[in-house]
């Protein structure tokens, strides 16, 4: 079961995506418990508009039915933050993708090109320390 975390907005307006198949993870059960326990139906939702250039996080869990939450950065706290940090951490062990928003405006699925020589894995791992 795929969980996708997408970070958009920010001053740079870049989109970065992390993805994990929780059924391929060694601790699948704890993932499912975490995902099940999130308040999906009462997620904070769109930004309050008073904080410009902050990140916006979009979390999608391909459960049945699909669950999705959009959170402004300042509300990525508690279990939401825990899920994001776990996805980023697990994702960095696989192929990370970092994509700018597409020019045609549609949502972009699939991984973008990556540069192994850039050691992007290290970037993700270091990012996790601050979980930004």
């Amino acid at each position, binding site marked *: 079961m795929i969980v996708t975390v*997408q970070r958009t*907005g920010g*001053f*740079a307006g870049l989109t970065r995506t992390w993805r994990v198949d929780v059924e391929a993870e060694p601790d699948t059960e704890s993932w499912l418990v975490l995902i099940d326990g999130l308040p999906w139906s009462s997620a904070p939702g769109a*930004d309050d*508009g*008073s904080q410009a250039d902050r990140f916006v996080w979009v979390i999608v869990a391909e459960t049945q039915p699909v669950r999705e939450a959009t959170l402004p950065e300042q509300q990525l706290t508690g279990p939401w933050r825990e899920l994001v940090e776990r996805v980023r951490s697990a994702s960095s062990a696989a192929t990370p993708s970092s994509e700018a928003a597409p*020019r045609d405006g549609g949502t972009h699925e699939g991984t973008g090109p990556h540069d192994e020589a*850039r050691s992007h894995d290290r970037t993700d791992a270091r990012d996790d320390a601050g979980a930004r």
Partner: protein
Amino acid sequence: MTRFIVPPYLLDHLAQAESPRLSRAPEAARHGLRQLDEVRALRSSAPPTRQGAVAREAALERTIADARGTEELPGETVRSEGEPPTDDVAVTEAYDALGATHALFLEVYGRSSIDGEGLPLDATVHYGLDYDNAFWNGERMVFGDGDGEVFRRFTASVSVVGHELAHGVTQYTTGLEYQGQSGALNESVSDVFGALVEQHLLGQAADEASWLIGEGLFTDEVQGRALRSMAAPGTAYDDDVLGTDPQPAHMDDYVETTTDSGGVHLNSGIPNRAFHLVAVALGGNAWERAGQVWYDAITSGDVSPTATFAEFAAVTVASAEARYGAGSEEARATAEGWRGVGVAAAARTGRRSS
């Protein structure tokens, strides 16, 4: 009470004179006009009983705090107004760029700080760990240090500091909602004045400036000059990890998306380019006429928080006509700039278009 002997229309004419026999007179006239604008602005922004407080309102009061890698705000104060530089380059960069931003708004537009009433300017540096961002939180600017692989520290670009502070100006003027077209306008206003802060600091005319936003933020690893280009949206970077700069330069390429609050950092390319077109059409220093038109527009009270590009364009044209005259070079260049990006200024049905 200040009175000027030489009438404004004569100062205007002299300020734009280009005779080879005039070297200091045009600048002296421009200085006189700025003083006139400052006095007008202070009169209109300050209640009458506070005329004697003009000097205090125009004062600059900066405070830089250090979050020391945490996400706690405001952080610990490390430099207050008037104190000497420390050995922390991020603190110095924030302090100096806050000063440059304050100087643009006060010296050129007669605006005392972001609220027009001398609001203290606060910034926090070293926010978070490997934090690839800078933002305005409604009260202060906050800067991360970048991850060191893709991004350097976010205080390294004067345009970034000016951009963030300009979000504060928007908060106190138009209040443009951070979503869709009004959000893209919010972003564009910040890029416009961020670029003008940098150009004014460096003394660059419109044809000398880079028109880049965030130049110097990328590490050497990245194939790109900056985050955004106002002159040529979509060309600022082309990198195998980041992808290609996705900004459109024309309404035909407006991006409909749900990400990034409806693409506010994408579609800002369109009004950014409109401003650039106006600035290069008029020539000279962009902050003097093109910037003046934009400043007049955002302080007119006629831009609604949900303004579309077309509505904002109409206010800029009206502002240019009000200051420089209907049919003036400035009014025509403003309308042409918007036409150049495929935006037709909305018909104005009244003082406020909605």
